[in-house]
């Protein structure tokens, strides 16, 4: 019976979300209560499920005898599902205050809630086909969210997003087909499913397919050369950029990459081949590239988006190390980056929503007027830089430990890239912090008289994220042990 809940947590938000524009709400409060209630119930169900994992899988239906749409909880899926289940209710709460002045609120919340279900579908997918289906669906349901404001810019951005994502998915699909043909089973299995007897002489072709598949899925994770859609998509309302473009959508890309690497092709097959070097080199390049673009960018949300580009490649780099430790590093950065980046995005959103300022040079002296927002932003910034005691240091440590342990010279270069990236992160985050807290001496506070901290619906998520950043930073033991137990399943 437990297994059926697997499908419930995926389908409930999809159906419940679709009802939002249809239900006859009397006022905004009712809609808010319904939406938040729906998301909270679903999160509670999902988390309960993750703590009492059913052993078996649940088959929703069968396309053919061996192609099914089926769900199952395993360690890696747990991590991703837990991240989104915790973040979604908080971001919905934040969105209530943010969206107050925007139009088409119901449509917005409809898609926002549906996306929750689809993302859980990716996390809980038992096999590569199910994951692929939900992956495509994710592109389609998040499209209206980017387009939300219907400005020319937004329409263009959503079009770019569509082309990039569908194109990437097409490449990924090639990989999926090959997994079906050469694998013993479509189900995700720690260590991979490739049937080496069937592969025979075609190793190089399969490696090529792996590279294509990696690059296809990593389009959503915004790896260079397919990264430019992400900063463009920053035109979406901030709850979307914060949750989808820092966590759900982009991490779905990284998650899919880890799935095919560790659970389909298998790290043993890939380790030490040219394919590994190609994908690792791309990830390393993106780490530095994203940060450099972030330093150059003056629009605050786009700057954070470029920072996301760089940080997602930390995860891809961890995945590309292809050792159990690499998986630990990648997963820990997935968790750490989720809280840090969402926190900094929400801060940026609070500034944009409450004051209309969008550029870094307009933020002089904001620290005194929005002390809570900028305190949270500072903590998130320091965490992104990797200051010890905050969660960014923990995940970076795990990544680098894996890289040093692998004794691969390219991974050493990756370590250097991480350090360069940390320096650039310091530059693009701390210039904002210094500006906000230490304006020039002739700065006139009258020019920002209208600026003040937002209401509790925005501040509560900040407080929770800051606590999470510090807690993970100071007490990482349970998290890392959990991730290590996941990696221990790899042969």
């Amino acid at each position, binding site marked *: 019976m437990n297994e059926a809940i697997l499908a419930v947590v995926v389908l409930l938000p999809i159906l419940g979300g679709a009802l939002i524009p249809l239900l006859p709400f009397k006022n905004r409060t009712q809609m808010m209560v319904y939406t938040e209630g729906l998301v909270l119930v679903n999160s509670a169900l999902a988390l309960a499920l993750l703590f009492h994992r059913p052993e078996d899988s649940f088959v929703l239906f069968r396309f053919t005898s061996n192609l099914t749409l089926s769900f199952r909880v395993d360690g890696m899926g747990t991590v991703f599902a837990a991240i989104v289940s915790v973040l979604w209710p908080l971001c919905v709460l934040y969105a209530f205050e943010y969206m107050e002045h925007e139009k088409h609120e119901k449509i917005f919340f409809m898609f926002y809630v549906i996306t929750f279900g689809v993302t859980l579908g990716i996390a809980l997918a038992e096999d590569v086909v199910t994951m692929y289906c939900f992956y495509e669906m994710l592109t389609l349901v998040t499209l209206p969210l980017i387009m939300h404001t219907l400005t020319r810019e937004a329409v263009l951005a959503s079009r770019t997003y569509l082309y990039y994502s569908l194109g990437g998915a097409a490449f990924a699909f090639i990989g999926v087909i090959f997994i079906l043909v050469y694998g013993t089973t479509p189900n995700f299995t720690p260590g991979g499913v490739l049937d080496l007897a069937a592969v025979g002489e075609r190793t190089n072709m399969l490696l090529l397919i792996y590279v294509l598949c990696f690059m296809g899925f990593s389009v959503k994770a915004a790896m260079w050369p397919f990264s430019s859609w992400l900063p463009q998509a920053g035109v979406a309302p901030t709850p979307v950029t914060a949750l989808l473009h820092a966590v759900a959508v982009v991490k779905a890309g990284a998650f899919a990459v880890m799935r095919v690497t560790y659970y389909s092709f298998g790290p043993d097959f890939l380790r030490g081949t040219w394919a590994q070097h190609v994908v690792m080199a791309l990830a390393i390049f993106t780490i530095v590239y994203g940060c450099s673009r972030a330093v150059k960018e003056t629009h605050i949300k786009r700057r954070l988006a470029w920072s996301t580009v760089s940080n997602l490649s930390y995860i891809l780099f961890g995945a590309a190390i292809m050792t159990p430790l690499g998986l630990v590093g990648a997963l820990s950065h997935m968790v750490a980056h989720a809280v840090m980046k969402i926190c900094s995005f929400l801060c940026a959103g609070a500034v944009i929503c409450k004051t209309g300022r969008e550029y870094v040079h307009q933020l002089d002296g904001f620290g005194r007027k929005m*002390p809570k927002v900028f305190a949270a932003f500072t903590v998130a910034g320091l965490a992104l830089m990797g200051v010890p*005691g905050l969660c960014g240091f923990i995940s970076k440590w795990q990544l680098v430990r894996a890289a040093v342990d692998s004794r691969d010279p390219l991974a050493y270069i990756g370590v250097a890239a991480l350090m360069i990236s940390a320096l650039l992160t310091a530059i693009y985050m701390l210039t904002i912090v*210094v500006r906000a807290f*230490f304006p020039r001496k002739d700065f006139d506070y009258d020019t920002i008289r209208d600026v003040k901290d937002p209401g509790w619906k925005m501040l509560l998520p900040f407080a929770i994220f800051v606590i999470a950043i510090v807690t993970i930073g100071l007490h990482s033991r349970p998290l890392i042990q959990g991730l290590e137990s996941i990696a221990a399943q790899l042969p």
Partner: protein
Amino acid sequence: MDAWILLPVFLPVLAGVILLVSLALEKRKKGEEQPDREPGEAELHNLHRYVAVALAVSGVLALAAAFSGEHSVTLFELLKGIPVYFHVDDISRLFAVVISIIWLVVAFYSFVYMKHEGKEQRFYGFYLIVYGVLMALSFSGNLVTMYLFYEIMTLTSMPLVLHNGSREAIMAALKYLFYSMCGAYLGLFGIFFLYKYCDTLTFTAGGTLNLELAQGNITILLIAVFGMLIGFGAKAGMLPLHAWLPAAHPVAPSPASAVLSGVIAKAGVLAIIRVVFYVVGPDFLRGTWVQTAWMTLTLLTVFMGSMMAFREPVFKKRLAYSTVSQVSYILFGLSVLSPVGMTGALLHVVFHMVIKCALFLTAGIFIFRCGETRVEQFRGIGKQMPKTLWCYTFASLALIGIPPTSGFVSKWYLAQGALEAGVGVFGIVGPAVLLVSALLTAGYLLPITTSGFFPGGIVKHFGIEEKHEAGSAEEASVGQSGQENNSAAQADAGKVAETNRKADSLEPVPEMLIPLVILAALAVLLGLFPNPLINFAGRIAASVL
């Protein structure tokens, strides 16, 4: 329970945070309409008392922690197998004690000085926090803990640099931040590799490198260690990451410049000592290209710093370049990896702290009393502030290394260490560079004394405008354009100056002068009675080499 040794860490940090938070709350309460108000005399007095008590109590606690035997505290596990761990050993003692004394002395000086900079509460908030962080840095017992506080030190000392809020100061602060971060990340890069190849990251005299594990990975380890030397050397102003120092130290208020140059630059030295002698182990580096490159870089820095100081007309900048040069004396002493050299380096850590603070306090007095910053404007200053200039002169002599002042002792050991370390050509080149640099040091410090006491003929005179209305316009113009005036005007001014010289004393109030006198006296006395310190430093050096 040894947890009480963390009191000198937490107490000042807490006191500083209270200051900053109350400042923020007060600003909010007053609302947006009122502009920033200058605090009243009574308020300032309370603030000073608060700071003095906080520093004195934590200073006493720090001394108690340092001198009551071996202590260690484990707070919690930051990462698996890497706790936040504090341990008091001889190096900790040396740094904690000297830093505490200097911090307190400079604080007393700053009480008067900061009146003309303003925003005292913010300044003292960070001043206290940085003190706590420095204590934590001194007491750190493993590499990751040290790295943690090293980063925090950078972040919390940055507001001291940008204190006056000018564009120049903010740019300098950012430069400071980014160079330090760059250095810290180079250090972190090395820590990752040491974590893999060392038995433990806990500081152990003589190093913990596991040579069996390291077999076959020597190259990458050497690169990592070299990165750490460059990285932590950034704080100490070592080439090639030195450029922030001459920009950042002079723009800070003088008390902050003093502690930045005197104390915080030494945090880089402390980090390098910890890495080389307590984690990697000197034997691993001896004779490798890393040692050669390190010695070369330090000697280049010594020479380049002195040369730049010699050419620099702005007084505080000149002192900052001098710091670049002098801190690399210390690093050179470490780089030869001999007990005598290390003794010299540790001695120079202490002496340079005292001397450089004294010099920056002098610069502060000149700025505070005359408003002048350039060296050529200080002509004749000795007639008006003889005591200040005498203190300056003694500190200068000590920095040059003229016996029997303190600098002589440390440089003696440095040179001797280089000669007997068996480092080939560096044994000769090293002492030679030190000598040339000493000459340059004399060249950039002593002219202020000579022209201050013996201006020779025509002098610009400070402070005339306020006291002598007659002919003030003329003198003001002289004051502004210095020696560019024609000789007649200069002669006039000279006459006026001559008549007023005896009447006008610009000597600062005792609260400012006494800290300076203490430091200058220390600079000389430590040279006269160096034996306890030499024995102590020698003991440390013998324990690691």
